[in-house]
């Protein structure tokens, strides 16, 4: 196990476990969310090389290096098919082929509701957020829901979202089977402190594991909704040396994953640094 790792690398490795080679089930690359992208590429490069990955209009895309300007074009090189969004959405988002498409919302509550729309009142918002794109259909129809957050606090994991842009309903397997809805896993929340799961409409989220060095009390104190706490909570697995090396050297050499953990000016300054590196590589390519 790697002793020198950062918490976002542990999160990436835990998300990667959710991407598996399950026959006809598909993982979708949504908006540019480097933490989720890193996890999908890591899965493809390690335990799930034949797992289906769809990015943009590229179906069966290969794992690609993460960058702001190069990942889109790379997705098409080595992809196995192309499809337009609507027919692909019928198969994956609305049909029966959706495995994994991580969500990361401004708020999430104990019902599993996600808020990507507004802070405050919907009609007079304090902050108008981007909106959910396909997330409302994803959380309802995929085999499972995986949500990650760069902060674990009671403002983000809150008692009640200001607006439910999306919510999986029902959650319990027997009720989903009865309604002929996809099943395959719980709602899983992955944060810098812990992994939380919920698979029963009538029970709170439980703590699947706490990360190394984090106490159960710390998780409970920073979560805005009630948690089921068992007496013996395991510790989240640390990344392996191989995983950390792949992430740093191959998958994300520019460090785009840090964006999820920066805000405001910090983020734009860091972006300029990454862009300068991407530009330098392209200029070197031209000079050859």
């Amino acid at each position, binding site marked *: 196990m790697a002793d020198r790792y950062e918490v976002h690398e542990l999160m990436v490795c835990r998300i990667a476990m959710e991407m598996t080679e399950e026959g006809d089930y598909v993982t979708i690359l949504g*908006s540019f969310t480097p933490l989720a992208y890193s996890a999908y*590429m890591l899965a493809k*490069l*390690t335990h799930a*090389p034949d797992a289906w990955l769809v990015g*943009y209009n590229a179906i069966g895309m*290969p*794992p*690609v*290096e993460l960058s*702001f*300007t*190069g*990942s*889109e*074009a*790379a997705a*098409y*090189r080595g992809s196995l098919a192309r499809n*337009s*969004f*609507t027919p692909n*959405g019928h198969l994956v*988002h*609305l*049909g029966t082929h959706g495995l994994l498409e991580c969500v990361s919302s401004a708020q999430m509550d104990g019902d599993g509701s996600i808020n*990507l*729309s507004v802070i405050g009142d*919907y009609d007079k918002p304090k902050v*108008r957020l*981007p*909106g*959910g*794109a*396909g997330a*409302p*259909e994803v*959380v*309802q*129809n995929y085999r499972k829901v995986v949500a990650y957050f760069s902060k674990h606090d009671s403002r983000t994991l809150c008692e009640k979202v200001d607006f*439910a*842009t*999306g*919510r*999986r309903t029902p959650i319990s397997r027997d009720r989903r089977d009865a309604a002929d809805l996809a099943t395959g896993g719980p709602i899983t929340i992955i944060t810098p402190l812990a992994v939380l799961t919920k698979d029963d409409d009538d029970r709170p989220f439980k703590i699947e594991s706490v990360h190394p060095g984090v106490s159960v009390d710390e998780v409970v104190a920073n979560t805005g909704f009630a948690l089921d706490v068992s007496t013996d909570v395991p510790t989240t697995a640390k990344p392996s040396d*191989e995983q950390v090396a792949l992430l740093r*050297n*191959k*998958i994300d050499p520019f460090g*785009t994953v840090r964006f999820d953990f920066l805000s405001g000016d910090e*983020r*734009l300054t860091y972006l*300029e640094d990454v*862009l300068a590196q*991407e*530009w330098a590589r*392209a*200029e070197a*390519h*031209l000079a050859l």
Partner: protein
Amino acid sequence: MTVNKITQLERLPELVPEGAVVAFGGGWFANHPMAAVRELVRSRRDDVHALALLGSIDVDLMVGAGLLSHLTFSMVTLEAMGLAQNFRRAVQSGALPITEIPALSLQVALEAGAQAVPFLPLRGPLGSDLVASNPDFFGTATTSFSDDEVMIVRAIRPDVAIVHALRCDRLGNAQFDGTFSQDPEISAASDTVIVTCEEIVDSTIISESAHLTKIPGFLVDHVIEAPFGAHPCSHVPRYAQDAWEILDYQKAAIAGGEVFDAYVDRIREESESAYRERVLGGGRDKVLAALAEVGPTLEASQNG
């Protein structure tokens, strides 16, 4: 009589009727019809009802330039660069009326529009508050097959679709060799379809690679040549997104006020060809092309 749908970018605003619902192509920072957006900004219109599925700088620029009277959308964001500032401010202040619809539901509504049926059923976003807040869009139906209710969405038929393609001929056969999002579907759903393209080519060129034709010409009404017409968004495989230009945009949008007004004024005061000269000069065009080539794919054997 020979069909010729070719026209000039300067004519685009007059092809958009007053108060029209206009569906814009592309998604995220990929392939939005930015030359068309800029030309609409130059026209100083203020009456467009935009429909955008995965909007970014396209929508935010139109909001900031005062072009929109209404916005139907599923997402508007500048992703890693932050919230879409003009969009955020305009909705928070109440200046921009919006209709927020989840993306897949919006796509099915456009499909219904294309098929000329009043609605279509779907496995929709049952737990979303957007269902209750959009009763004119989400409904339920029962059929003669059973007593079960199914979720339906009402058909949407935009007045105009504007998309940006790689190549197109005089008949409107539009080809793509990279990201085309849902451009074929918005074209099928809309009454009038305007294709801007990197280059207009002879139909013989189109037929040599007919598998790249994603929008058949019978759907298309107008064809406009607009090189780098997606800039600063990407048009893969020709060029990657110009992230420095998008960053300059975002800094102006964050500053708002006079700073953003100056950004808009500069677009209004220059022609599209002058815009190209300004932003692509100094070899920027070649770097953007190289950026679309140098991002590597990875192989499982390359450990560490």
